[in-house]
């Protein structure tokens, strides 16, 4: 038997497999295919204080080994989430990580305060500081690193919940921002969100997405995500990291563990294989058995460097 238990600060997950926000719904959308209780945790799609309609269509477009999306954080808002979604996870004892985005620093604070009332039913908060698809708190936060500090401080003031700051790979200096995020009160990091990209329909000459550009996800961004996870874990070994970015197979999952990731968030891969999470979990167990690994921690951050001659 392999012990896959993953501890992060005060949190304990039965295995390191979770799902990336926005790729697994907000409730039971994949329950026909996946027994949620087998997952380390579920990260729900970003919720905002008020419902959001989201962007006009088209919102998605396939690109080589990935896709662009500009959903625009369509969601039913905080109230629906606490009334309808949180109880679903609480009843089934499924560790829930709630991803939030405010349209302002203040809204982030309000969301944290409201959710703190449900702290017994929530494993952690993930702050979406990096959505390429909303202006305030999204792209603006990407442009102005200091907004991130203020936002995290606003959230920290309101809650004792464990906070993961989800960063964009497009910040000027991601490592520096990561350090600032921790200083501002974040407990862990989530890396990476999508990277902005574009595609054009050559007959109509229109962008393939109605709003012009969108976030690239899927295997196409995996090496970039891996590098960020690796470099940040090297610089900040004590800070826990949720890795996302193209994780599609168990081999990918092992790669991210070797680079130092604590949790592995499966994203776009769910769209292609609704059972991706469980398939990856199985593969991971077999890999450990084959390599006589008893505890998953033995692989974490175990990169072997090339010998220099």
């Amino acid at each position: 038997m392999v012990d896959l238990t993953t501890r992060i600060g005060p949190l304990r997950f039965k295995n390191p497999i979770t799902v990336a926000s926005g790729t697994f719904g907000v409730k039971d959308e994949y329950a026909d295919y996946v027994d949620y209780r087998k997952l380390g945790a579920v990260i729900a799609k970003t919720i905002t204080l008020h419902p959001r309609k989201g962007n006009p269509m088209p919102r998605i477009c396939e690109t080589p080994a990935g896709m662009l999306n500009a959903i625009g954080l369509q969601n039913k808002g905080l109230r629906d989430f606490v009334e309808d979604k949180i109880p679903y996870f609480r009843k089934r004892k499924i560790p829930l990580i709630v991803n939030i985005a405010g349209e302002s620093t203040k809204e982030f604070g309000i969301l944290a305060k409201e959710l703190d009332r449900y702290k017994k039913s929530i494993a952690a908060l993930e702050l979406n500081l990096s959505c390429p698809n909303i202006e305030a708190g999204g792209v603006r936060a990407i442009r102005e690193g200091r907004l991130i500090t203020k936002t995290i401080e606003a959230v920290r003031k309101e809650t004792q919940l464990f906070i993961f700051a989800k960063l964009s790979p497009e910040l000027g200096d991601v490592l520096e921002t990561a350090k600032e995020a921790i200083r501002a009160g974040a407990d862990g990091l989530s890396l990476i969100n999508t990277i902005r990209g574009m595609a054009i329909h050559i007959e109509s000459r229109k962008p393939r997405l109605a709003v012009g550009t969108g976030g690239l996800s899927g295997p196409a961004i995996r090496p970039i995500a891996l590098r960020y996870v690796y470099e940040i874990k090297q610089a900040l070994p004590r800070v826990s990291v949720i890795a996302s970015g193209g994780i599609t197979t168990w081999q990918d999952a092992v790669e991210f563990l070797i680079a130092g990731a604590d949790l592995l968030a499966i994203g776009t891969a769910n769209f292609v294989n609704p059972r991706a999470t469980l398939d990856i979990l199985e593969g991971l167990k077999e890999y450990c058995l084959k390599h006589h690994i008893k505890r998953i921690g033995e692989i974490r951050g175990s990169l072997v460097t090339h010998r220099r001659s």
Partner: protein
Amino acid sequence: MYDETVTILDNRKVNAEYYKLSFRSKRLAKNVLPGQFLQMKIEEGYDPFLRRPFSYYRTVGDRVEILYEILGMGTKLLTEKGKGGTLKVLGPLGRGFSRHVERKKRILVGGGVGVPPLVFLAERYDCYQFLIGTKSRKEILPSSEIKKFAKTVRYTTEDGSFGKKGLVTNLLEDLLKKEKGNPQDYFIQTCGPNRMMERVMEIADHHGIEGEASWDETMACGVGVCLGCMVLTRKGWTASCKEGPVFRFDEMEKGH
């Protein structure tokens, strides 16, 4: 809903434009409604990465048939798959067409790759008139494919090479002008390019006739998660893969 790896029984050209693919699967063939669809992973690899949606064209026992046309890379690769090849198929997905329309006369209006689900409907249930619009004679279905309802089918082609020249929506207008019954006596079901269906809805609205349209939106997940395939209904943006792809005309927001 099931996700299965199926073995291709047959995959061949049926006319200049369409291919017919068939495979066997008890679970994917059971309790299917016309208008429901499947999400197919055509290649194992990463390019193309996403699955492709295809309507059920026909089920016979545990055999499932799909009728498709080459549009881009995915469908091109699909034509290269032969008997014995495998595909990952997820389904049945979505909400289909109404099978029974009480005593109303069912008018089907199809264009392009919207024709297959309507064939499913016409073959299994009743059909009063089946109007099909294509670009040219090349896309006309072989008579063996439409045997059971051949006498209800009327074609229009854009280049006039078969049937009436023009758009299928003109044919619908002509038909409704000639019909003597009350609007409540008819029910329109349509599938094709979104612009064609919008025109069908306008015509239906003008005549006070009810109906349903199956919208064609790009999909990623096919199960209501990614929020990429939305249509604008009176309830706001709605996932067409889950709440649709078939929606009643009166569910849609005007100016969709």
